[in-house]
């Protein structure tokens, strides 16, 4: 139910003239986009308050459907560009929209250090478990042994846990959900938007066209239900064995720590530097 009273409705962000969008039937990215716009509305944001940085890939097309300040950059580099934007223009809400390839495979180094630095940026990772845009190859989050266009005989590489990686590296807000649990997407994005420091929200999304078709989940609702079956709330993790958790998606809030963001620390550095300059 989208009836929300507030000055700027979520529809002010939606570039309707560019719909229908390019994502495949049943792809979850339209749901993630809508949830983000709901979160913008609930957060009292207007298009001019927001800078959306997108990378390259299916999710990277999201800025085509937005009224906001948008920056479409090279593959894997949305986070460092977002970092520069935020540092130079601190009143803006800066959100980096990245796929699993963008954020954790080619962009993995930036994900680690953006988390460690705890830069005041929101990373919204849409994880469809493969490289959809280029035809369904496996990425670093593709489940072990899955078939893809480049792993016909099974993916030989275990998947990376994006949330654990980001949390371990120092991100102060980390949460994962799936497109099946649609209402939590908006909730977590809302929490991320109001969080001081680096916040990462990962949303696992169905990819019926490639990952689904290669892994007997080609019907959109079928893959959505599969996401539900594969999800384990983080609260229940402690009473489950390693075996039970294999290839499962742990959902929920991994970290929600108050504390120093990069910008709050750097403001202290600027005051020390100014004092030294004045004393010269």
């Amino acid at each position, binding site marked *: 139910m989208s009836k929300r009273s507030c000055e700027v409705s979520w529809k002010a962000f939606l570039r309707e003239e560019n719909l229908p969008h390019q994502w495949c039937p049943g792809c979850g990215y339209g749901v993630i986009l809508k949830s983000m716009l709901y979160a913008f509305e609930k957060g009292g944001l207007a298009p*001019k308050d927001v800078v959306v940085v997108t990378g390259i890939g299916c999710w990277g097309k999201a*800025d085509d459907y937005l009224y906001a300040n948008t920056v479409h950059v*090279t593959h894997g580099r949305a986070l*460092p560009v977002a*970092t520069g934007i935020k540092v130079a*223009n601190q009143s803006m809400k800066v959100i980096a929209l990245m796929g699993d390839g963008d954020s954790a495979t080619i962009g993995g*180094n930036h994900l680690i250090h953006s988390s460690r630095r705890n830069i005041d940026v929101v990373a919204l990772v849409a994880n469809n478990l493969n490289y959809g845009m280029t035809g369904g190859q496996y990425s670093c989050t593709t489940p072990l042994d899955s078939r893809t266009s480049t792993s016909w005989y099974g993916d030989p590489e275990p998947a990376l846990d994006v949330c654990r990686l980001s949390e371990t590296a120092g991100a102060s807000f980390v949460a994962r959900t799936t497109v099946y649990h649609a209402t939590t997407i908006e909730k977590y994005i809302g929490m991320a938007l109001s969080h001081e420091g680096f916040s990462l929200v990962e949303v696992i999304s169905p990819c019926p066209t490639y990952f689904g078709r290669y892994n007997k989940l080609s019907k959109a609702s079928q893959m959505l239900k599969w996401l539900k079956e594969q999800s384990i709330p983080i609260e229940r993790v402690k009473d489950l064995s390693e075996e039970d958790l294999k290839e499962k998606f742990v959902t929920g809030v991994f970290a929600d720590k108050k504390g120093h963001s990069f910008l709050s620390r*750097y403001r202290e550095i600027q005051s020390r530097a100014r004092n030294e300059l004045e004393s010269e």
Partner: protein
Amino acid sequence: MKKKVRFMLGNEAIVEGALLAGATFFAGYPITPSSEVAERASRRLPQIGGCYLQMEDEIASIAAVIGASIGGAKAFTATSGPGFSLMQENIGLAIMAEVPCVIVNVQRSGPSTGLATRPAQADIMQARWGRHGDHSVIALSPATVQECFDLMVQAFNMAEKYRCPVLFMADETVGHLRENCVLRSRDEVEIVNRKRPPEGLEEYFPYKADDDLVPPMVTPGSDYLTRFHSSTHNEKGLPTSSPQEARKLIKRLYDKIEKNKDDIIKYREFDVTECEYLVICFGGAVRAARQAAMEAREEGLSVGVLQLQTVWPFPAEYISEISKGKRGVIVPEMNMGQIIGEVRKAIPDEVPVLGANRYDGEPLTPKEIIEVLGEVVSL
């Protein structure tokens, strides 16, 4: 007003020039022989409310510089060969998305890790063609510590004026040289800021260029929503695959530099018009070239020196003009011969062009140039 003169390292003068130009953001990654630029930036920028960001690699550094410029700051980075190679894709992004920024390359002996502490000029063709696709680019090259200061101001002015990256091609000899440098004050120097759109536009098109082929630029947060795009895009900043739009965009990005050569090309002439033998050089080779010319003149040889402060876009028309009637042209470079190719293309065939090349990690000295002068004279 007493001039403020400091005995200063080239790498430090680079930062002071950037500050005078209005830079408030540096993002970089330590690399010999440019680390002193980062060190001074990390100390000076927070003093003026600016920010130094040390990133996880050079790819992140140039990305953060692009972000900061999009965010409204004048931003720069400094690196050397290996980092310069890593930055190429995003330099292409800065070209396509038309984001003003300055990339300092304190060149060192390559290839690969090469001789980290030794000078070279072998990245100069990479500066022109280091990234994929049809495009043009601006590259300046300082030969003295004073030029490290003055040309950095020019680099930022050009970046802001033409909404593009500017490559600042120093090398280890100039970067690690210590000389007197006049720290000019803001009112002594022209500072250019990016062009803004007029108020009250019905709709702001982020990539709609004026007659000077440069689109006005907006800082996010103003009433106009703005867009930046790495893929071929239309005037609204939305992606397009229309051949007409693609051609129009690529031609505009190219022409906005190539059609403004008169404004962009800077050089210094030493007895250029009247000399019989002309030495054409840039950056770290200029000092040796001028000494060699002086010594040759004392031996009665008529030698002049043309120092290119702008290497790209290459001043081909000017060089073909002034080289008419010369008996020989010498191109000293600390590489196996790169700019000499451009010089040969620009010079009438009958004028012999010889390179004076050194690529062993040692700076070029007057001796190498005088030897080649001897060869060309005996031709």
